[in-house]
């Protein structure tokens, strides 16, 4: 290239990657997995509350879900980072704060997905459960939720990819994630352009692979159904 810019990636040795990036990658993955599992569990509970038919359960659940969904995630991250220490009376690390925030935040999004999933199951299934003598809990656990979960699997996975992308927003409170790892390496070796480029490629490779897998899953499920 004729331009003055010379890209030089030689400083990114395996050692550098291991000491700067792998810690961040591990945190991003952990954050994604914990928030996914916790978010789906809490989200399913919220969805059940919203479909319970009891006003005093529906209204608070709907309020929670709609509030979370209308605030930017960055603001939610900042809110929790400010509020949790006030509530527990001592400071909390950015990483732990992020895990709590993401779990509670994603629960709102997973709740909407699970609600759609549960509503997609014909009412006859519910009645059939009751007819064979199951109670509400058994019918949900053994009949409705497994089907709802399976129908929604591709959407849940797509949301998880978005969740993984969003973990980069812990930048707002300075937690050490994948992006931060690249950023610090870039600062220390004075090669920010190269590290941001590599970070882009890494994020893209992960998310693109996952979204291709989701597409295949979607086709499979569509055939079985």
């Amino acid at each position, binding site marked *: 290239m004729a331009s003055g810019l010379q890209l030089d990636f030689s400083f990114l040795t395996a050692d550098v990657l291991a000491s700067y990036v792998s810690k961040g990658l591990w945190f991003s993955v952990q954050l994604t997995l914990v928030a996914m599992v916790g978010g789906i569990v809490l989200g399913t509970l919220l969805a059940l509350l919203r479909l319970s038919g009891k006003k005093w359960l529906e209204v608070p659940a709907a309020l929670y879900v709609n509030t979370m969904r209308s*605030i*930017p995630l960055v*603001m939610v991250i*900042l809110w929790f980072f*400010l509020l949790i220490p006030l509530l527990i009376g001592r400071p909390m690390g950015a990483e732990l704060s992020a895990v709590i925030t993401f779990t509670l935040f994603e629960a709102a999004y997973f709740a909407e997905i699970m609600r759609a999933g549960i509503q997609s199951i014909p009412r006859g299934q519910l009645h059939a459960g009751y007819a064979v003598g199951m109670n509400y809990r058994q019918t949900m656990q053994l009949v409705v939720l497994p089907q709802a979960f399976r129908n929604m699997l591709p959407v849940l996975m797509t949301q998880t990819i978005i969740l993984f992308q969003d973990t980069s927003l812990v930048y*707002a409170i300075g937690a050490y994630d994948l992006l931060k790892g690249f950023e610090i390496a870039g600062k220390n070796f004075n090669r920010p352009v190269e590290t941001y*480029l590599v970070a882009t490629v890494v994020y893209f490779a992960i998310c693109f692979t996952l979204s291709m897998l989701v597409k295949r899953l979607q086709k499979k499920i569509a055939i079985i159904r």
Partner: protein
Amino acid sequence: MANWDWQVFCKNTVDGEVVPRCFGDNGDITYLDWLLSAWGWTASVSALALLVALAFGVLMGILRTTPSKALVFIGDAWTELFRNIPVLVQVFLWYFVIPELVPPLKQVPSFLLVVLALGFFTSARVSEQIKAGIQSLPKGQRYAGLAMGLTLPQTYRYVLLPMAFRIVVPPLTSESMGIVKNSSVAFSVSVAELTMFARQAQEETSRGIEIYLAVTGLYYLTSILVYQVAKLIEQRVRIPGQTSGGK
């Protein structure tokens, strides 16, 4: 926690003194002034990014429904590229990397770079909606247009797009509301929008709860405004006879 101090918004940002009428004068500004201008930045970033997203999203969405394999590939590649990179990383890319590769961009203010980043990121999502909208039309519409002797561009212009655009208004509404929320990533490159205000004012005043409440309230208000405008548009352009959303 119980002792609120809403007067914080009337404080001068330089010396921290409470200003009697809450708005600064002679070039001094209060936190309230700053909050409102930050709201303006959030609105401008979001509005301009929406324009970029619609322009590129519509174009790419259309390409993905054409019979040409090459055009479909371009549209698909665009969508996958901008959808699979976190928006914050895309902001950094526009701010730190692309100006190094394209030196003239060094003169461009970070505000516009964020607009491009957010716009391109969202264009991938818009392209999905446009593609789905066009594909939801019966295939006969396209064939009818072509059979009447319209060229492919004419078929799009007079037959497919007038229907598709009206179908995609509701999903585009949520994308527009998403842009307002995502504009908060602009804080990372020091655009003086709401989230940046929240972080800085919180640090300067230590009245985080009041500051965050005000900022969150303004985000909420902005979302509602966008939603109401979109509803108006939706009612104006609804396709008569199509059953959607009750009355």
